Structure formats: C-alpha cells, structure tokens
C-alpha cells in the first residue's frame, strides 16, 4: 500500500478511528494486525520474512536475557546476525554476488554458469532487518532489556508507518511508547496532519512532478544535450530528496496522530556546509545506525588518522551496498566517503587559503560558497545513483559494467 494512494487515504482514518475507539489493552493487537495488513497489500507471502525475522530476534533477545555468560550471549547474537543478514543476502545480494563472481572468473577464462534467483526484492527488507539487528545488538550490549511481550516486539518490527522505508527506529525509543496509554489529542492530531500534508506536497507536487521531466530526459539520454542533462540532474536531486523526505513526513505524521513519536530523518540537508554535515541532515537514522553499530566499534575517530579514513570509507561503502545490489550505489556513497576524507586531508590548506583570500571576513559569502559546493558534490555523486534508476544508453563499456543490478530498479519505481 502506497502512502500516496486512495487505499491509504481510507486506511489511515479507519485505523486511527478504531485505534482510539478500542480499549487500551486491545490497541497494540489491532495495530499489529493493521501493520501486517499494510504490508500484505503488497505481496502477502513476503510477510513470512518479517514474521521469521521477528521470531528469531524475539527468541535471541529472550535467550540472551537468560544468561550473563558473555560467550553464550555472543553465540545468540551471532545467530541473529547470520539469520538476518543471511535473509537480506539471499533476497537482495545473491544475484549481484553471483554475477560478480562470474565476471571475475571469466577474466581468468573460468566459465561459471551462475544460478539466478528470480525473486522480487521484499519491500523494506533493508529497513526492518537493520531495525531488528539493532535490537539484538542493544540487548547484547545491555542497552535494552529483552522484550518478553511477543506482540509488542512484533509491533516494533512491523509498525506500519515506518515499516517499508524507515526511519530506522531503535527499540529503546519505540518499544516503551507501545506501553503508554495514548488518548486522542486534537493538537497532536493537527500537527500530524500538517506533517502528512507537507509530505504529500513533497511527494506528489515536487517529486512526482519533477520525475516527469527527469524520466523524459534520462530515458532518452542520447537525444539530450549538456544543459538539459544538467537541469535533469538538478531536478533528480530534488526528486530524490522530496520522494524520501515526503515519505518520512507522512510516516512521522501518521504515527504522531496515534500518539507515537518517530525520529526525524531529514533536517534541511541542502543547507549543509560539508558532506560530513550533510550526513547529519540526510537519512539521519541510517547513518546513526552505521555510526553506533559499525563506525564506533571499528574505533571511530579515536584511532590513527589512516585508520579513521579507512573506517569512514568502510562505513560509506557498506552504506552504498545497503542502498542496493549494484556498483552504482557503492560508487555514489564511496564518493561521499572520499569527499569527507579528502575534506579532512585538505582542511588545513583550505583554511589557510580562506585566510589569505580574506573570505572569512565575509561569512555570508563563505557559507554560501560552502553550501553550494556541498550541494554540487552531492548532485555530482547522484549521477551514479541515477544510473541505477534508469536504463543506461551510453555506448561505453563502462555503463554496462556499472549496471550489474539484481533487477531493473526502474521497473520497481512504477
């Protein structure tokens, strides 16, 4: 079910109405049913994956809570990681991995007839996988008590506003909210409706309106000149932003009407003055996940400088892979990692240059320059992202090697 569909326009008021009409003790039962219905509207059989992930992590949490022995807890955590990432790998990365192995082996004249799974990528699998994994890690670290109520845990995994495209919530934030007794608050509902309205504006007025132009240009790349392609690329930047931020606003607004608070995922990203700052404003929940569960365990920035650069690149390469099983995503996000590292290396030189030119005496100009440069770098990196969305028509071999994808992403969009 899409947020921008008539189905959802009927679904949400019905769910909200019944939610407040029911006694408190039945509300989470009802929300769980509504959430599963929401997901099953897309492809009913894939709900099994969410249920499987839920059962695994619920069991893992309980088992970890039953022992204080670190080695045993680690085994349960390992089981959770293998099961969750195993499912993600099978459904999202298997064909990509196989295709790459085939290409590499072909270079050595070894011909490998790789099997291909013809599976449709389960909607939101990366989002709910990361959410369940974060719960297991938090329980392992002792940051979260194991959840004994299966219904509450299942709702945490499948809560419909944020099930298919985030924000990737933490159990420490969302689970306690399900225990709170929510009563209808007109002001809060109005605030939620405002968020939904703004999200709808971003999606159907900005993103989908821009996509008409972007699609027409990118689907006929060879027939368009440089200026048209530049305009289409700029439009694509705003399309991606409004598409995702619009979804997030509708998700936050829908949850807010029922009294639940979801984390913010965007904070005016195009006003960032560096790529590092940009990632504190764009898809905040994803980068926070990578920061807490990968970057900091790797040592963060409290390591020798070369190792910090390596940590940054690891995070962004994996962040690229999270986005999709295609090298284009890896290149897009790796570029961001590179920009951050390069920015750090050249920081002192740039600071000296700014001092020599006296630019810092005009802070407004300096800030406009930094913001424009950050936006330009992001727009440039998104060209590779666009290659995943549109069938390439470039006659070079580069485009074919870049477009090893699980399936045509463009077909998923419509």
């Amino acid at each position, binding site marked *: 079910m899409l947020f921008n569909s008539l189905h959802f326009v009927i679904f949400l008021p019905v769910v909200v109405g019944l939610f407040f009409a029911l006694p408190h003790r039945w509300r989470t039962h009802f929300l769980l049913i509504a959430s599963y219905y929401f997901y099953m509207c897309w492809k009913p059989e894939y709900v099994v994956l969410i249920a499987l992930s839920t059962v695994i992590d619920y069991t893992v949490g309980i088992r970890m809570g039953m022992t204080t022995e670190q080695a045993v807890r680690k085994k349960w955590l390992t089981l959770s990681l293998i099961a969750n990432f195993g499912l993600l790998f099978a459904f999202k990365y298997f064909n990509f991995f196989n295709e790459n192995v085939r290409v590499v082996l072909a270079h050595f004249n070894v011909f490998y007839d790789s099997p291909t799974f013809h599976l449709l990528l389960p909607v939101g699998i990366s989002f709910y996988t990361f959410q369940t994994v974060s719960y297991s890690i938090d329980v392992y670290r002792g940051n979260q008590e194991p959840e004994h109520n299966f219904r509450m845990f299942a709702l945490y995994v499948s809560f419909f506003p944020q099930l298919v495209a985030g924000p990737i919530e933490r159990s420490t934030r969302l689970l306690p909210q399900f225990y709170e007794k929510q009563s209808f608050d007109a002001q809060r509902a109005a605030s939620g409706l405002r968020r939904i*309205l703004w999200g709808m504006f971003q999606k159907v007025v900005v993103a989908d309106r821009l996509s008409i132009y972007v699609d027409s240009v990118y689907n006929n790349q060879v027939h368009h000149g440089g200026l048209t392609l530049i*305009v289409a690329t700029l439009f694509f930047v705003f399309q991606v932003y409004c598409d995702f931020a619009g979804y997030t606003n509708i998700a936050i607004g829908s949850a807010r009407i029922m009294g639940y608070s979801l984390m913010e995922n965007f904070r005016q990203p195009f006003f960032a003055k560096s790529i590092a700052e940009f990632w504190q404003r764009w898809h905040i929940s994803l980068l926070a996940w990578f920061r807490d569960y990968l970057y900091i365990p790797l040592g963060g920035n409290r390591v020798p400088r070369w190792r910090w650069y390596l940590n940054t690149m690891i995070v962004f390469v994996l962040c690229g892979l999270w986005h999709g099983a295609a090298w284009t995503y890896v290149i897009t996000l790796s570029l961001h990692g590179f920009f951050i590292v390069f920015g750090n290396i050249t920081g002192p030189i740039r600071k000296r240059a700014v001092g020599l030119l006296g630019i810092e005496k005009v802070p407004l100009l300096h800030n406009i320059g930094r913001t424009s440069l950050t936006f330009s770098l992001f727009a440039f990196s998104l060209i590779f992202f666009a290659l995943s969305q549109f069938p390439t028509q470039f006659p070079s071999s580069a485009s074919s090697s870049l477009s090893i994808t699980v399936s045509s992403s463009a077909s998923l969009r419509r």
Partner: protein
Amino acid sequence: MIYGALAIMALMLVDAMREFFPEAMPRFKRQHVVVRFASYAAIVMLIVTIGVFDGAQFIYFQF
C-alpha cells in the same frame, strides 16, 4: 518544467525558513484560524491541481 521549478522554489523557501528562522513555524501556528486554514487549503489545492497521481512508487521502497 515550470511547475517543477516553482515547486523547488517553494520547497527551498520552507527549508530556508526552518533553517534560518526556526521560530517562524510556531509563530504561524499562533496565527488566526482563518490564516492557518487558508494556508492549508492552498497546499491542498496545489496538491490536487498540480500534484501527479500516477501511483508512482517511492524510490526508497526498493531498498
């Protein structure tokens, strides 16, 4: 294309207000009910008149 460009301008205006004048939104909420509802009605009208309802999937669904 013109609608798209205008939509971007509207979006950036709102984002700029949030970035540089964070007190603007609470001030708007204190406006007279007629002003507020006229604004909401304007956004609804924009959505209905220039919004695209072709059932386009959200890009991030594929992730």
